[in-house]
């Protein structure tokens, strides 16, 4: 799927990282994200999805390897300039502060000294929350909260959005709506999205997935290439069957008496 002429936004080469002195948590991690790509990051709990996203946005500093953002080393950017290029939404946000939706979305403008063209209202319009501008975020549903933060990252203007488990704790309807929204925004605005997720069925509909095991890229490519029964067994430690609907779309199922 990925075209060789595509502009590379983020490139990681042989990145290593460890939380403690003894164990390297991430070793020799290499991959890149091109303009307009929409990547799902999959892996078992503790495989390093969050760590990789945090390395990508600079919250964690790699102990080895290089990390380029728009062909320049990450360290060459001032924090504010970096924030205009890449934004990261953590899995959990302390949302007990009763900011209004609009206040929160406007925080996307913080890295800017000269205001960009988009306004908070436009950003809210893009995520379909125009009517909630003055509500407190504490009053919103889980899906609306996520959309609020996505509106904020749109205002932030970053070309690359990293999301850590944005679908967690959402009902199936909101999960699908959120993925559709992100995909639409990608199509309309040519932004790149990398999101960690754990639902293989949703990942099977992605254009590109990256399987993570023990802090390394186990496989990367279209779901058909990367999400094979063998790869899933290898990374998640459970045997599944990949089935096909009449229209050709894949889904997984597992056997009741699975002994592997």
């Amino acid at each position, binding site marked *: 799927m990925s075209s060789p002429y595509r502009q590379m936004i983020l490139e990681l080469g042989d990145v290593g990282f460890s939380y403690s002195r003894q164990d390297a948590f991430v070793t020799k991690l290499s991959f890149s994200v091109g303009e307009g790509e929409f990547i799902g990051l999959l892996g078992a709990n503790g495989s390093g999805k969050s760590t990789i996203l945090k390395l990508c946005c600079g*919250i964690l500093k790699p102990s080895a390897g290089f990390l380029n953002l728009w062909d320049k080393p990450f360290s060459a950017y001032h924090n*504010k*300039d970096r*924030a205009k290029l890449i934004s*990261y939404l953590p899995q959990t946000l302390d949302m007990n502060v*009763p*900011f209004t939706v609009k206040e929160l979305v406007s*925080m996307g403008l*913080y890295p800017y000294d000269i205001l960009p063209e988009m306004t908070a209202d436009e950003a809210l319009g893009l995520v379909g929350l125009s009517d909630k501008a003055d509500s407190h975020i504490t009053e919103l549903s889980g899906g609306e909260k996520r959309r609020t933060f996505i509106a904020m990252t749109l205002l932030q203007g970053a070309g690359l959005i990293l999301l850590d488990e944005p679908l967690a704790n959402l009902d199936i309807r909101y999960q699908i709506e959120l993925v559709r929204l992100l995909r639409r925004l990608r199509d309309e605005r040519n932004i790149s999205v990398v999101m960690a997720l754990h639902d293989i069925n949703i990942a099977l509909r992605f254009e590109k997935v990256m399987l993570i095991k023990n802090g390394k890229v186990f496989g990367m490519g279209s779901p058909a290439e990367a999400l094979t029964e063998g790869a899933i067994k290898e990374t998640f430690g459970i045997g599944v069957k990949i089935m096909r609907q009449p229209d050709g779309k894949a889904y997984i199922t597992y056997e009741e008496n699975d002994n592997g």
Partner: protein
Amino acid sequence: MTPRLMIMTLIFFLAVGLSLFIGPTNINPFSLDETSREILFAIRAPRVVVAVLMGMALGASGAVLQGILRNPLADPYILGISSGASLTAALGIISGISFLGTFTIPVLAFAGAIATGSLVGMLGWQRRGLWPERLLLAGVGLSFLCSALLMLLMSVSRDEGLRRATLWIFGDLSMSEWPRIPYGMAFVFGGMIIAGLRARALNALMLGDEFAHSLGFTPHRERVLLFVAVGLMTAASVSLGGMIGFIGLLVPHMARFFVGSDSRFLMPASALGGGALLCVADLIGRSILPPMELPSGVITAIIGAPYFLFLLRRKNVLSV
């Protein structure tokens, strides 16, 4: 937002004006005799200025601290800054030393406040950063230690010194005088400017460090700056007039009802609200039972708490 902030500013100036001209005896600014002039300029004006400075410092510090500690129950005194100040001030009062004349106790209190503030900062420091939970626990721990030492000091001191130290600790604005004010003002405004410049960072920090990072802030550096701002404001306030409760804890919550949670409005609103409240409380304290004065800290809570509870019932209060 902004119109509401303007209304608060108006209320604030109204409170200051009232405090200047109303008192045990009202003063007509257009016909001043010598006594009235002396009362207005030498007694009342410095007192009102000190009330305003203290109230503003406590209100703004409370708003900042509740944000950086992500805790709606945080107040500037929780960091042990005031206990440290009370301890050194009480030491000074009870031992009766006066190496700097009338500046002795304020300077001792300021030194105590800065010392405890720094100690809390050092204890809250780990892995190249200030951590909210560590700060909070270090503050609470140190605060208990200082209070215990204060109790120890008071139980071995003579009853007379004890009463005076108690009076000082529970806030006394009657001794306000011009010479101390520029120093207090420098620290209060200094802290307020630092906090004001970092208001956006504070907003982002309230939603978490990673989020703040994503918006281009360095969370630990921002927290240190904001903590220093709170330390300066609180230390200056305690050294100007002792401990005044309530303002640091509840005025930010009251201000939130009016201007919302955005620190860029909440901080000035808390400062204005704190200043106005303490002014009015002091006005009441010195006017209702002349020639006796009631402690401002008590009045602050007596008029502030019911209003806060009223707001709490009427509006849907949300944490932080």
